[in-house]
């Protein structure tokens, strides 16, 4: 049956977020079944079947984010081997667009969750800090695929960015001070005042089943 197995009750984890309509869940469920080839869980290999994703330079990080236990709101750390539909929805919920009826507190939490997701993408060793090396890794991945850009360019970009981050977060540093890495609070500071909520969402078209007359 087409709709067999769709969880009708909202998973607990989604409660802090505005409600997802049941039609959107059905669409996502169908997509999940397509990706998992009708299995109950997805593994990393299942994402290989998406042609559009092949072009994305940070494809690896995006797929990784789906299996990152910090994003799945589980208490433990590390990587999951496979995720089920509830986990899939949890990750997709990071890209929910803003609803009109959210209050200040909800908006703030919303924004923090999105930025945390992004932070986890940079912080690959899960130690709560983005170090210079991790930053370099991300920049290299973004620039990967073009053989003409040398590693040096990637390094200089990363170094420049870290210095700017340091100056925003710590202010003037003494000659002996070493900037260890960007913590989440520093990360939040960097993005103060910039509107990311409208840049980091996927908006569904109105998918109500309206009857169509000839």
């Amino acid at each position, binding site marked *: 049956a087409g709709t067999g197995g769709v969880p009708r009750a909202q998973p607990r984890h989604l409660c802090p977020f505005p409600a997802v309509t049941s039609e959107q869940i059905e669409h996502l469920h169908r997509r999940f079944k397509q990706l998992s080839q009708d299995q109950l869980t997805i593994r990393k290999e299942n994402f290989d079947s998406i042609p559009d994703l*092949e072009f994305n*330079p940070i*494809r690896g990080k*995006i797929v990784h984010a789906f299996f990152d236990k910090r994003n799945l709101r589980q208490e433990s750390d590390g990587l999951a081997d496979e995720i089920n539909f509830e986990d899939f929805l949890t990750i997709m919920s990071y890209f929910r667009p803003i609803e009109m009826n959210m209050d200040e507190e909800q908006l703030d939490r919303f924004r923090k969750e999105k930025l945390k997701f992004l932070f986890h993408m940079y912080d690959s060793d899960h130690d709560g800090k983005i170090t210079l090396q991790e930053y370099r890794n991300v920049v290299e991945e*973004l620039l990967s*695929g073009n053989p003409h850009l040398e590693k040096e360019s990637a390094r200089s970009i990363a170094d420049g960015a870290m210095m700017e981050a340091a100056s925003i977060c710590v202010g003037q540093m003494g000659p002996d001070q070493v900037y260890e890495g960007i913590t989440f609070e520093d990360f939040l500071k960097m*993005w103060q005042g910039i509107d*990311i909520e409208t840049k980091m969402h996927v908006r569904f078209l109105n*998918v109500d*089943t309206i009857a169509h007359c000839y």
Partner: protein
Amino acid sequence: MEVVWAVGQVGAVWLAVVLGLIVLPSALGISLGISEAYMRVLVKTLEWATIRLQKGAKKPQPQVPRTPTANGIIERDETPMEKEIALLHRADFEFSHIFYFCRKGFEAIVEDEVTQRFSSEELLSWNLLTRTNVNFHYISLRLTVVWVIGVIVRYCFLLPLRFTLAAIGITSMIVGTTVVGQLPNGSVKNYLSEVVHLTCSRILVRALSGTIHYHNKENRPQKGGICVANHTSPIDAIILTNDGCYAMVGQVHGGLMGVIQRATVKACPHVWFERSEIKDRHLVTKRLREHVADKSKLPILIFPEGTCINNTSVMMFKKGSFEIGGTIYPVAIKYDPQFGDAFWNSSKYNIVSYLLRIMTSWAIVCNVWYLPPMVRKEDEDAVKFANRVRSAIARQGGLTELPWDGGLKRAKVKDTFKEEQQKNYSKMLVRNGSVG
């Protein structure tokens, strides 16, 4: 004994009715109007069902028509990459780039334009077929009763009728072409072969309850040309041969298909390739060139996509067909999914279950547009020419154009394609002066 005799009588009457009302008019090329009457009843019933569904829906529906699902379920921001990154640009540009790629990545995961073309088109409202009842739930008793009647009509009346017709059609095709094949080559043979092909095509179209509207018949493919069309299902060929004679191109199959191929090639110069020959592209091109050069031969029919697409879009045309030369006659075929889904999802259904689904649908309704002939320009290469033809077909049929290869149904993206995209991104970075 009596029972057998009675059954024999019924069978004979049945056959006589079928022959008289359907086969004979097909042979003569006239229509008795039965199909038209059936379609009118069908349309009225589906309209009624749609109104019931609308009444039965719990929430009040706004009068805004729904965005066609052919273009997807999520709203995509079509801002080019450069503009969007510029909007977010700060000194730490990578963060803004990460946003852009993150979002694109998620959009691709929720829905990618390629994979959705390999599954059937979603309907705006239910057409009383069980198989399309994914989104629609129980509405009312009356609707369910009509649906049950529909099931009975389709499986107990239409299916045997269609099966009989298909059997008659295929048998007469084999027998007819074998007989004609015995004649010496000449104009009589060609004329008779055309008659046989046309008649059998018409019978087969009626076997599917096909209602086909042909547009711009003055552009019909001429002899010595190449006819090119978008591919949705194996019955595309029958749809086209219903209105004209073509020389088919294809691989030799085994089984029933092989028998048909061997029989028809005696009467009419179809081009059937052995499996080993198909791999040799030069051989294929050479044979097709020879065929086209002979102006007395029928136009050849080719489907350059190479695989069945779900009729909402046209994918990449393989350039091989466009290197042969000669005049190209493009044809656009668009099926109406409300009456029956013609798309063959070969990874989901095999040919037998596909034919069964087709024969238990309401009908196959489609529009065929003959487009004006096109010739390759002096400075155009085969790929550009192929794209030009593809655009014309897509525009006429109301289909979207995708640059993707139909082969993606089974294979992964080619590395060359990927590198192209990555180069574009890197070029943009260098231009912005963000590097070095």
